[in-house]
């Protein structure tokens, strides 16, 4: 039962990343990120119950508060202010991107087979999903041009790292985790401010135009 929930949620996270790759409306992409974070919180909560680790409840709570509510709200506000709602044509078409992502998932699963078993026998799946999520996030980062999508790709990579932390080690020490969350939110804030300044200046948030500095 518990293992089913874990695998289901982790798989859901990967699916949401796939949907992000196939999506062009920025609002939907942000909502998908929120959903992905919610599933991460469910994973944390499930492990908190099954292994009686109360500190993981804090992780789950912080994840919901920051990553499913605060960060998506903030990013949507940024988009609203600047009035750009759609991703432009990515460097790679959607079907080709999805095909690449399938390949990346295979790679992620292949690497995960070498790991020792951790929490409750499902950690193999969790690592497989987490590494795939990491690779898909990186792929999203290099193929998209909009600044907001790049932030979301960065956050997806961050979620993948947290999935490893929660699923394999049953959570990092609490203070460290709080410090990390604080830093992530600060980084997103600064990135958001930068995006607005870039849009004000260049009247676009197409980061492929940021290419004056070379050599």
């Amino acid at each position, binding site marked *: 039962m518990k293992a089913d929930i874990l695998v289901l949620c982790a798989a859901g996270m990967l699916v949401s990343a796939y949907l992000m790759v196939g999506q062009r409306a920025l609002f939907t992409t942000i909502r998908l990120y929120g959903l992905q974070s919610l599933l991460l919180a469910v994973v944390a909560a499930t492990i908190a119950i099954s292994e009686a680790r109360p500190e993981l409840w804090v992780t789950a709570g912080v994840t919901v508060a920051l990553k499913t509510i605060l960060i998506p709200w903030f990013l949507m506000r940024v988009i609203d202010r600047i009035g750009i709602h759609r991703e432009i044509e990515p460097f790679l078409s959607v079907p080709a991107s999805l095909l690449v992502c399938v390949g990346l998932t295979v790679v992620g699963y292949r690497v995960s087979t070498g790991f020792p078993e951790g929490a409750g026998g499902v950690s193999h799946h969790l690592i497989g999903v987490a590494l795939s999520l990491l690779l898909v996030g990186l792929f999203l980062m290099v193929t998209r041009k909009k600044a907001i999508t790049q932030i979301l790709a960065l956050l997806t990579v961050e979620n993948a*790292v947290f999935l490893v932390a929660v699923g394999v080690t049953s959570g990092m020490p609490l203070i460290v985790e709080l410090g990390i969350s604080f830093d992530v939110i600060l980084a997103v804030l600064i990135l958001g401010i930068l995006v607005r300044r870039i849009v004000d200046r260049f009247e676009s948030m197409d980061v492929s135009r940021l290419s004056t500095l070379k050599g």
Partner: protein
Amino acid sequence: MNLLVVTLAAPLITAAIGGLGGPRQFKETVMIGGLAITFGLCLATAGRFLGGGVPAAFGDALRVDGLSALVLVLCGFVGLLSGTYGVGYLRRNEERRLVTKRMRREFFGLIPAYVFAMLLVSVSNNLGILWVAVELTTLASVSLVTFHDRDTSLEAAWKFLVLGSLGLAFALLGTVLLFAAGQGRLGEGMAALNWTRFMQVAPQLHPLTVRLGVVFALIGYGTKAGLAPMHTWKPDAYREAPSPAVALMAVGMLNGALYCILRIHLISKAAIGPEFSGGLLLTLGLLSVLVAVPFVLIQWNLKRLLAYSSIEHVGIMAIGVGLGAEAGVFGALLHMTYHSFAKPVALFSAGTLAQLHSSSDLGRIQNGTFTRTPVASALLVLSALIITGSPPFGMFFSEMTILRAGLIGSHATATGVFLAALSVLFCGFVFQVGRIVLGPPRDPSDRRQPLPERFDFGMGTVIAAALLAVVSSFYLPGPLMALIRAATAVVWGDV
């Protein structure tokens, strides 16, 4: 009160006061005074370590061993130097009415905050705290990159932050994987992430997980150090950030990131032997030195030129450690020390030239600066000689130590490539700096003449820093040498 906590609190308080309002004179006094006190406290902490103590706080989450003490002292030193030069730098811009209220607040707030984050990196014994501290350095410095608010600064800041955050996500994954490799043997709570705990249980760590963790952590912290191929943010950030902040990046951040790399390297060495991470460091180091070669030769901007020099030097240090010989490690740490003395001089004199010419682009500075601005030009030549490792200056000896370690060990090919790259880099630097300083003087009818040189506060700091760099080349004080040896013992021996 715990000495270590006080040492960290000093720059933080300075940042808090500097970030608030207040008359300019007051802020300047607070910044220089606060950073001087910080440096004094760093020396006191290192002194206590040399006296046989192990300063620690928060249940060993912060702990000073030989390596920490060396990096701490160097960071405190460059913090004071940058703060002092920064005051002169800002004054010069104030006179030309280039400084807004926002700039003043950011400058006096963020420079001490950056110093705080670097000091926190250098004393972290806990891998989690270490990560948080490195992220803090990134966040503190990004607003310094956008300081001048040009189109290009936004571009540089975006690349800096996105690449830096991505690198740090990798470093975090590396940390998590190393923690996972412990499979519960590291224990519970905060102390489970302590580096000392890792070293105790290192032989029992799960080998494959360690390998993967080390790769991710080295790539992640290597991004912050600017090792190739993760170096691309460096030239942009160096060009855009004001010179005092660049000195903090080029010395403080570089040393701090190298500190992280060494800690990870040591865990890897204790768990799965020295070849794995040593080989990685050697490869990344060689790549960094080689990458710098073409870009130095074709460079169009003075501060970007120094960024590639900084990529070269972090490469040299990585090679020294990666060679896997005690002499190499000693050479690398000695190189780090000399670099910390010399690099600020190069950046400050380049910054002074850039201020006088209103740009650091070589096209704007043009040739023949020696006739117009002789002091800044002479200092640039001197610092260029030092940082390219010309005899009789210190970096020549540290580079020789590393080369000898490479030749005695079984790394003849790598050492040969390294030596060849060093020679070309030397020629490239002499060519570029010679072109700027000595070339035919600028046409007197040119409207864009530089401002006249004056002996103000900033210039005084550069001259003082240059004197220190020259003196340190010939004479390192006994306690500093003892720190370098203690740091070598940490990295080489099984402490």
